[in-house]
């Protein structure tokens, strides 16, 4: 009896202290409010929309008037012969992305970090940010100019070197290379920002101490710089894996054509072509939901793995 009272009082106290805390920091909470409202309205409310994946959604009948069909659309999708093709294409592109693109900003950031002249470093930094602000339509347009067989610069150089022209844009073999190189060209510079910030946070005393002990450039890099940004790398990698299957709609949609569709069609473009253009809203939602579930599983898996290796993870 006494115990119950005591814990009750404790809870009350705790609750009171919670509200007290809220009250004390009320301005911070109020400042937080717009962000929370944003997430609620634009991220959480629309989530109800995924319910149409379990319906035969007809726009004119509306959400309440459409028929519930359970997992029908998921079954159709898994049995669709496109499924494994999409799955493979998306995964291969994603793996290319992680293997070839992900290390790039790290390497560039490390290289910039070693640049002695501050002004030179600044100029390079600014210049390599620029491609990030170029839209995919333009990037693809530039690629067409460079790589087409009809007076594309690259092919003109090949032919003047006495080689056969290569049809970069209209062949299945070159598709993934093209996509990944475009991503590298466009996003590498932008990706260095976070790593450079992490590098700036390293205590210079560590380097001084290392130099005193006779460590050269490579030693310093390996034993101070890399460990210092390791947790940043891990966190970014986990976040990247969360969006593993987001291969980017625009870029791929613009690059795909009949000759490379076998390797080029991914979940995102499939959702568009079967959903918006053909009005199969429920089916494409089911595909989207499936994609999100895989993303969630991957994030959780990566996070657990990171923790097992003694890193912090993202939650």
């Amino acid at each position, binding site marked *: 009896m006494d115990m119950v009272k005591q814990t009750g009082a404790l809870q009350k106290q705790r609750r009171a202290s919670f509200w007290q805390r809220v009250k004390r920091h009320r301005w911070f909470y109020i*400042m937080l409010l717009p962000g929370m409202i944003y997430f609620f309205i634009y991220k959480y409310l629309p989530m109800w929309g995924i319910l149409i994946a379990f319906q035969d959604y007809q*726009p004119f009948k509306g959400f309440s008037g459409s028929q519930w069909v359970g997992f029908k659309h998921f079954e159709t999708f898994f049995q669709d012969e496109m499924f494994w093709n999409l799955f493979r294409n998306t995964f291969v592109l994603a793996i290319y992305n992680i293997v070839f693109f992900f290390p790039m900003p790290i390497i560039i950031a490390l290289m910039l970090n070693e640049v002695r002249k501050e002004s030179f470093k600044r100029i390079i930094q600014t210049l390599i940010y620029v491609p990030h602000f170029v839209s995919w339509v333009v990037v693809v347009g530039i690629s067409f100019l460079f790589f*087409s*067989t009809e007076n594309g610069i690259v092919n003109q150089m090949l032919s003047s070197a006495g080689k056969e022209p290569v049809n970069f*844009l209209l062949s299945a073999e070159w598709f993934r290379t093209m996509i990944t190189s475009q991503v590298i060209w466009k996003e590498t510079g932008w990706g260095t920002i976070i790593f450079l910030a992490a590098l700036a946070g390293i205590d210079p005393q560590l380097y001084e101490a290392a130099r005193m002990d006779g460590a050269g450039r490579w030693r310093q890099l390996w034993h101070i710089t890399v460990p210092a940004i390791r947790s940043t790398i891990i966190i970014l990698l986990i976040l990247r894996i969360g969006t593993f299957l987001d291969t980017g709609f625009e870029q791929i949609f613009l690059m795909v*054509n009949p000759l490379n*569709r076998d390797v080029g069609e991914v979940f995102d473009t499939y959702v568009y072509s079967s959903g918006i253009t*053909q009005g199969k809203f429920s089916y494409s939602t089911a595909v989207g939901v499936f994609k999100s579930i895989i993303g969630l599983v991957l994030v959780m898996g990566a996070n657990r793995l990171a923790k097992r290796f003694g890193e912090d993870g993202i939650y």
Partner: protein
Amino acid sequence: MNSNSNVSGKSAKFFKVICLACLTTSLLAACSSAKEDASASSAQPSSSSAASTASTKPLELNVMMIQQLAEPPKADSPFLKAIQAYTNTKLDISWIPGAGTAYDDKVSATIASGSLPDVILIRRTKESPNLNAQMSGVFWELTPYLKDYKNLSKMSEIAVQNASISGKLYGLPRERVLSRYGMIFRKDWLDNLGLQEPKTVDDLYKVAKAFTENDPDKDGKNNTFGIQEDATMELLKQLTVYNGGPNGWGLQDGKVVPDFVTTEFKSALDLYKKMVSEKIVSEDFPIAKKYDYFNQGKAGMYFSVIDDATTRHVDMMKADPKVQVDVAENFDGPTGQHVRATFGYDSLIAIPKSSVKDEAKLKEILTFLDKMGDDAMLTLINAGVEGVDYNVEDGKAKKIAGAKGSEDWQNFRWGSQFGGIQIEKTPLETKVETLFKGNFDLGVVDLSASLMSETNTQKGADLKKAITDAETKYVLGALDEKGWNDAVEKWRKGGGDKIIEEYTADYNKNSGK
């Protein structure tokens, strides 16, 4: 010490309040503007229906219309004033840019949202989203009303037939020239090489080959090729028709079949492949932009609607006065001459039931649309504003140089493009018009335009995409004979045979067999 911290605390507090004020105002601004939008769109239909009860007052209408040029018509456009004055209406038009599928996506979203305008243009009316919308009763069925109107009762029969779904019309089809497809070519290149205008498919191939190999622009460089193509492979479609094959879907041995199962198509496909391998058609055509190579003086011909010749090469002819563009539609084939035809209409002007609740309002809107078919309105849309776009001298209407004409207002025209006052035309325009009129009976119409197939609605588009992909691969040599046959077989097994069956059944039903 104490007072010091107090001061900094206060200033921090002040800072917080400022931040907060900024945030909330921006948030409120966002909220209120969104609200305004919503209330505006929901309020207008009701107010317009209230206003329209008095017949002397102008009829207020919300219209959703496609915008094809870079900028929408201005609110003070003389065309808007003329239309409103003539039809006694007050139009509130949402011009929606029509590049790619943007317009269709917007229509889908608008239908899904349920808040529709009074009048809406819907394109691709036989493809699933819009087909479903028509069949599930989103729009008024207009068939029973049309006979009561002076102009609407005289609409083009082919357009009505092709736009109908099981004999029912859910919008006004905008009439288009039927025999509209043909070849556009460089007359000066032809003359340079001393060649004659091609009269058969064989001639066509020879001319295209000469354009590729014999330096038709006489600059001493091997920098030209015969035919500009793009991903739509228009040449293939026209070659099939010239061979006597169907345009899309046609009747063969009592069955409604797609072009790609016919022998006429196969020989066209093989010729196409040959042209690609001989560099007559550039091998990057799947990513080429229509008109570009022709306008750059690299390609000597292309296949399209032939009125493109009068509108798409103005800059090119201005830059180089030697350039002469000409058109042709008539090619002799084994079964005589055929021209690839359109559906005879483009898009529907539809009236949604959710915004137009009663027959009275419907009839008022139909009266407005009927008036748009009067000579005065056709003159306005086809020729423009007198004194600005054209002048009448000695009973002849002459275009004023540099006049822009009706621009996007032509999207309101459902009547004939030859209606109203006749503007004096350039020789090329006259030739195009003569071909249009003279070849009316040679037009080969896609039979599926007026037929229904449940399977086609469901997965026709996916199936067809596999076929167009296979066509492209085959002509580029990425697919062999067997691969092509497999693709067709896969189409048949995947639902194609069923589509053939359903179309044939519907065709037999319609033709009363």
